[in-house]
């Protein structure tokens, strides 16, 4: 692909006839149908089977999905899904991902929602099941054999008599013209032959041989190169731009200024780099930043928007009568997505239409944002997903798409924008939010927890732009749109049902709201008050957003409680859990790790030598969207303060597993990404600006480390719905490592990352 590929191109090559898309996607677009997500209309009507599945005259199956792959394995798993439901080999399926001209609007690919959305009885899976049943009904008519006596297999519908018709013969170049049938029967997991099997990523050979096209490789005829010039300080605004300062730069096409957005366009990329470096812009000073060393106190001093998640209203009373009350505070920094490739996008904006090749997770919301930025009608904007560097959440993908659009708009020619590393790290992405979490718990005489009180404080500014808020990412804000911010508000009492999407509610409490207890534990006296305050920096979802922060606090505090009563950390957890799925993964990890059952810390009189210990943590991701437990064996060097993890064992249950090979890859990667975040990653700043600007100041663990062993135990359950899987394991890593450090040394780390300096300080604070 070198430029836009229309739906027609795909269908021509697959031999199908889908007449509603026969012209340029920006022309004559059918306006029928509503998008699946409330008020956002999409021309690709998700209620119609033809929006999802097309079978060509050659029998090739083309499927259209609104959930895209950026390395997490969704391309392969969805291809398996189609192959399974339609009973064709994987290599007879062509999956088209995320293009506002041709795929259904499935919002954003995020939040471990792709599997629940497209692999249960909805979305892509339900469409595929509908298609299989439709093919059988067509064969029923053609062969005169009752549907019950027909089976679909290997691209044919067959009768027991031996008669058969290929899918290509059945569809004969026609559309289905059917609605997606919510009652179409999915193939049962016990009958699966493709889904549930370990299929290596379909793009693997293409990746390792350098053939795969990333968005960074998109070339459009006549394409120019753009770079952006960002403010030197948070809050700084443009005072003046001296275009004369770049007049001599060869190849310069234009200096572009729109409010506080500044960029340059040149014929070639190095010319754009030079122009961006040379351009003299006078900026206002900016508003200054709160001191990083006091930041966690600062957070707590800000006006907050409060949500009472659970409140049994007896916590203070129970704490007053408890045998012992423990308190602790946990701190988690801002962290970066830090995609290895700085973000890139290509836009071709003309007088009355625009096309954007974007690594966004959200093609339809991005289409809305681009339409707003340009003042174009929605239907005149096309956003095509092209994979970028792995994103792990809201990296610079959306912001760079806006950058490309603004620059292309100014020159009315296609423009490719490549962010620099500093652009990406300082003025590109929406950071994972900093958080401070206060914990209190009361124990009775037997050591059982009788009350748990938790107050997390998290920061927020902007976020995913969605359909309505282009100012939620940096470029939108620079161009004059306001980001969503925090409106302070006192808490209302919890109502409805427990919603634990951020894992603010610990696993060990009952989670009772309006008389219904949706938590995973049995502690009935519970209170969780969640505070959100305005962030000085843009924030957004970063793999397991706030779930990691909260789980770090809960699972370390649980460890502190078990140590206080001299109980084994696994046994103590089990004592307070009632959710069978969470219990199952915890037991599985203890068994696989040959868990050494005893209280922490390990008694070791030799404090001057390298100490080793084991820790555990577990979570029901988002309360019910994936279950994971993790053990970590770590070594702590008291001289250097360095922590090295030797062995992780993860046990995960996510319902029926779509692809165990992909799942293992996600668990292994999640665990080690979590280790890097726990041991070294932290955004830093001075009084005006971010100072973690590159890989020399933002510390990611490189490939050349002593890589720990990572064992995975996969619990496959086919009697429940599929849950998310890609964000579960990372959620418990910091806690498991922190608990292992405590077990090894008796020193408790309550602040991420566990840098050598913090580890040494904690060691020195031991009694």
């Amino acid at each position, binding site marked *: 692909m070198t430029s836009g590929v229309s739906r027609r191109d795909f269908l021509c090559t697959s031999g199908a006839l889908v007449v509603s898309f026969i012209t340029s996607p920006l022309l004559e677009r059918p306006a029928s149908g509503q998008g699946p997500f409330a008020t956002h209309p999409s021309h690709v009507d998700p209620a119609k089977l033809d929006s999802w599945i097309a079978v060509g005259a050659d029998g090739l199956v083309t499927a259209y999905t609104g959930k895209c792959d*950026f*390395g*997490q*394995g969704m391309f392969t798993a969805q291809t398996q899904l189609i192959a399974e439901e339609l009973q064709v080999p994987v290599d007879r399926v062509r999956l088209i991902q995320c293009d506002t001209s041709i795929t259904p609007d499935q919002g954003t690919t995020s939040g471990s929602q792709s599997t629940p959305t497209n692999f249960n009885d909805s979305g892509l899976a339900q469409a595929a099941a509908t298609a299989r049943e439709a093919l059988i009904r067509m064969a029923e008519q053609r062969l005169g054999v009752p549907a019950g006596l027909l089976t679909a297999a290997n691209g044919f519908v067959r009768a027991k008599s031996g008669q058969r018709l290929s899918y290509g013969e059945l569809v004969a170049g026609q559309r289905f013209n059917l609605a997606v049938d919510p009652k179409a029967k999915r193939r049962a997991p016990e009958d699966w032959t493709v889904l549930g099997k370990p299929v*290596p*990523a379909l793009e*693997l*050979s*293409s*990746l*390792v*041989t*350098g*053939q*795969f*096209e*990333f968005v*960074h*490789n998109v*070339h459009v005829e006549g394409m120019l*190169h753009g770079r952006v010039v960002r403010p030197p300080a948070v809050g700084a605004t443009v005072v003046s731009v001296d275009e004369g300062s770049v007049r001599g730069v*060869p190849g310069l096409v234009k200096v572009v200024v729109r409010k506080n957005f500044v960029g340059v366009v040149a014929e*070639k*990329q*190095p010319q754009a780099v030079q122009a961006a470096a040379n351009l003299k812009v006078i900026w206002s000073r900016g508003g200054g930043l709160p001191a990083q060393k006091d930041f966690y106190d600062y957070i707590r001093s800000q006006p907050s928007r409060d949500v009472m998640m659970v409140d049994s209203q007896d916590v203070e009373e129970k704490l007053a009568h408890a045998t012992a009350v423990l308190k602790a505070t946990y701190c988690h920094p801002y962290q970066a997505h*830090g*995609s*290895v*490739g*700085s973000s*890139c996008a290509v836009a071709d904006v003309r007088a009355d239409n625009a096309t954007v090749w974007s690594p966004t997770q959200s093609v339809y919301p991005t289409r809305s944002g681009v339409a707003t930025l340009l003042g174009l009608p929605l239907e005149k904007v096309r956003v095509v997903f092209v*994979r*970028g*560097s*792995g994103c*792990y959440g809201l990296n610079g993908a959306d912001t760079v798409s806006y950058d490309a659009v603004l620059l292309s708009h100014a020159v009315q020619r296609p423009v490719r924008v*490549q962010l*620099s*590393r500093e652009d990406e790290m300082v003025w590109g992405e929406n950071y994972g939010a900093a958080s401070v979490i206060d914990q209190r718990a009361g124990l009775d005489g037997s050591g059982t927890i009788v009350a748990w009180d938790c107050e997390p404080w998290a920061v927020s500014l902007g976020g995913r732009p969605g359909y309505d808020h282009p100012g939620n990412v940096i470029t939108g804000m620079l161009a004059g749109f306001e980001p969503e911010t925090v409106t302070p508000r006192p808490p209302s009492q919890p109502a409805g049902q427990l919603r634990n999407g951020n894992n603010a509610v610990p696993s060990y409490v009952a989670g009772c709201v309006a008389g219904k207890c949706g938590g995973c534990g049995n502690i009935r006296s519970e209170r969780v008050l969640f505070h959100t305050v305005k962030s000085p920096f843009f924030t957004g979802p970063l793999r397991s957003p706030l779930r990691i922060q909260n789980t770090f606090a809960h699972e370390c505090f649980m460890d502190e409680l078990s140590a206080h009563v001299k109980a084994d950390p696994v046994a103590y957890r089990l004592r307070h859990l009632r959710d069978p799925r969470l219990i199952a993964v915890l037991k599985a990890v203890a068994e696989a790790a040959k868990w050494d059952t005893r209280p922490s810390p390990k008694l070791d009189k030799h404090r001057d030598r390298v100490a080793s210990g084991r820790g555990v943590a577990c979570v029901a991701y988002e309360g019910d969207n994936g279950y994971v437990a993790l053990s970590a064996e770590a070594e702590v060097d008291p001289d250097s303060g360095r922590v090295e993890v030797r062995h992780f064992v993860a046990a995960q249950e996510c319902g029926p597993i779509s692809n165990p*090979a992909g799942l293992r*890859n996600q668990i*292994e*990667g*999640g*665990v*080690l*990404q979590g*280790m890097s975040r726990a041991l070294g990653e932290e955004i830093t700043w001075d009084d005006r600006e971010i100072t973690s600007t*590159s*890989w*020399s100041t933002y510390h*990611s*663990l*490189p*490939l*050349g*480390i002593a*890589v720990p*062993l*990572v064992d995975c135990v996969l619990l496959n359950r086919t009697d429940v719905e599929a849950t998310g899987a890609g964000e579960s394991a990372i959620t418990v890593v910091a806690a498991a490592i922190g608990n292992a450090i405590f077990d090894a040394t008796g020193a408790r780390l309550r602040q991420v990352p566990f840098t050598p300096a913090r580890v040494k300080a904690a060691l020195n604070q031991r009694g």
Partner: protein
Amino acid sequence: MSTISINVNGKVHAVDVDPETPLLYVLADELHLRGPKFGCGLGQCGACTVIMNGRAVRSCITSVGGVGQAEIVTLEGLGSAGNPHPIQQAFIDEEAAQCGFCLSGVILTAKAFLDQNPKATDDELNQALRGVLCRCFVHVRMIKAIHRYAQGRRA
């Protein structure tokens, strides 16, 4: 601007660019190669790596004017999907990729190092990979793949 000849993946290309241009931009923008990628532009991550006369170099901080007649090999020059190089095959066998953006740095750094140091210890190999980032953290599989290649090489 001046015309510069470079030898990439066994072919000589003449390009009309400023000699100060980073080699990466020539490979990506002029020759439309997909293997070497812009990661940081600072030589810190490895995504732009190519092999030049047997050594792994960071093309984002290498001026095209200084390349001369050196033989440059990019990730796509090593082997193809139909006929992958043994180290690429090892990565396929171990399923050692997620997003895959970092692979030029990982594969070419390891290959160049092992070709020059076939008896390297694990510590020496780790040292060679100190400046290579994979942010999906496919470390376990990548190290297995590199060891598989190293063993095959010795056999």
